[in-house]
């Protein structure tokens, strides 16, 4: 076992130990806080598939986070109001079932990512950053001006959605669900990163000419990566909405995109576990610094700047002494 694997396991261990301890010590708030970190980690892992593995600097991942959130909000609000979603030509009811909601969130955000990616990936560099931001802003304003689903005020869901056999209102049980999903996502993404797809995508990030010379098309690799990336972030959005039992347009805001990017950069771009460390650190800083000052984002900004300037591999780069995840 190398050092990085050890660190990964330690990180997962700590993220499991904290809520277990907090539950024993009767500190439900800490459980919720860790759940927040776990969900952010999933969102970051999603972005990392595009940003870290594909080199696609998306500043619009709030779009997928929000679509996932609204997928949950819309389905659950119809279910709690006993209003069918669609009556004609077929009857579609809302639902309070988490697995169904996750699946819907994943499909909806994957479709959104496919559409946004298909258009945005025709550009590169700064233009790509700006166009992904623009798409997310479009959805943001759309959500604000959509009165059927709460408009600016968002949507409240009274009870957390249901998972067979569990009481999701119990913080530790909801944590367990999110943690299990984190493990599943980590596993699948780690596999994909080493699979033919991951190898070719990584090569495209490094050198598009090389990929073309071996007969492959970077655009297709990017589009698939972007779609998967959006789907994972969308799943996180659905979980985040369930955590708060609330969905609002702010999930679509550019600040959200920025924060997801922060998880990835803080943790270490291109490492499967990087966003987990980044999200944990972010939530920790948010909690600690946020308690000290309302302007904690300034400190966060300073830390981020230091990471970008002096530790390109993020926390993992510092701890493992390696800049990149390859070789």
């Amino acid at each position, binding site marked *: 076992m190398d050092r990085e694997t050890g660190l990964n396991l330690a990180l997962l261990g700590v993220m499991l130990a904290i809520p277990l301890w907090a539950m024993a010590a009767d500190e439900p708030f800490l459980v919720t806080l860790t759940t927040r970190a776990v969900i952010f980690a999933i969102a970051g892992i999603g972005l990392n598939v595009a940003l870290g593995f594909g080199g696609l600097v998306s500043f619009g991942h709030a779009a997928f986070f929000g679509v996932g959130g609204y997928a949950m909000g819309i389905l659950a609000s119809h279910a709690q109001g006993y209003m069918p979603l669609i009556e004609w030509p077929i009857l579609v009811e809302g639902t309070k079932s988490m697995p169904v909601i996750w699946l819907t969130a994943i499909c909806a955000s994957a479709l959104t990512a496919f559409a946004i990616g298909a258009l945005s990936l025709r550009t590169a560099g700064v233009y790509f950053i700006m166009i992904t931001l623009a798409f997310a802003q479009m959805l943001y304003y759309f959500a604000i001006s959509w009165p059927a689903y709460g408009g600016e005020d968002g949507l409240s869901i009274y009870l957390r959605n249901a998972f067979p056999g569990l009481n999701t209102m119990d913080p530790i049980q909801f944590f367990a669900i999110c943690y299990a999903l984190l493990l599943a996502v980590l596993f699948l993404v780690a*596999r994909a990163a*080493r699979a*033919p797809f991951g190898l070719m995508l*990584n090569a495209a990030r490094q050198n598009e000419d090389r990929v073309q*010379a071996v007969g492959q098309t970077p655009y297709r690799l990017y589009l698939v990566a972007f779609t998967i990336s959006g789907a994972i972030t969308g799943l996180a959005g659905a979980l985040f909405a369930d955590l708060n039992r609330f969905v609002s347009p702010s999930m679509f805001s550019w600040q959200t995109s920025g924060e997801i990017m922060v998880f990835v950069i803080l943790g270490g771009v291109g490492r499967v576990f990087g966003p987990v460390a980044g999200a944990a650190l972010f939530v920790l800083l948010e909690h600690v610094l946020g308690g000290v000052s309302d302007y904690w984002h300034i400190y966060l900004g300073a830390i981020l700047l230091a990471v970008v300037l002096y530790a390109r591999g993020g926390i993992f780069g510092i701890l493992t002494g390696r800049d990149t995840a390859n070789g």
Partner: protein
Amino acid sequence: MADPILDVRGVSKSFGAVTACRDIDLDVRPGEIHALIGPNGAGKSTLIKQVAGGLAPDSGRVFFDGQDVTGLPTAARARLGMGRTFQISSLAMEFTVLQNAVLGALGHRGGVFRFFRPAMKDAGLLARAREALDQVGLAEFEALRTSELSHGQRRQLEVAVALTLEPKVFLMDEPMAGLGAEGSHRLMAFLDSLRHKAPILLVEHDMDAVFTLADRVSVLVYGEIIATGTVDEIRANEQVRSAYLGDEALP
């Protein structure tokens, strides 16, 4: 005479006022090494790019294996069987040598959209990659990061990746530059045997290599082919002597 596998017809390309290629006709036939020589800036790399893809000619057509490929993207041409090496090494620099070779084998085999089984544990890909590395003499360096290779070794790796593609024609832009005497000789011996697998369009500055290896030579000067012929014909060609080779003793 066998039909050419690669046939460039009347290709022209200008960059503003610079005419890099003017009405170029050139073909590559099965089993041959066709060397393309010419002074710096003659337009050799520009021609290779138009053949391999990535640069559209202003006019003219490129036929490959009986098919007009002029409008095809680079990746499609590679899949049809063009194995290209770049003048300025173009590899995945963060990857190991072996990973780069596996990348070629994977690109050739296809099945890129697989998400579960590790590529670097695929016995078929590894075997193909290692065989190619062995052929160019890089086997012992397979675990090295590509950025740690010397310039010459990067050229060798370029050739190895092209080999994994099992192409129908090789397009090699100065594969020997930076190799040193021993490396050059080794690669020369290898290219010599390679032509029977697939013909080679070889851009090369090393005249020893060209005159030893080539079946035919085309001489490009200021974007124009001033002569095409066997090694002996090119040596004897007055125009070539004055325009390019100078009057020094030729090999």
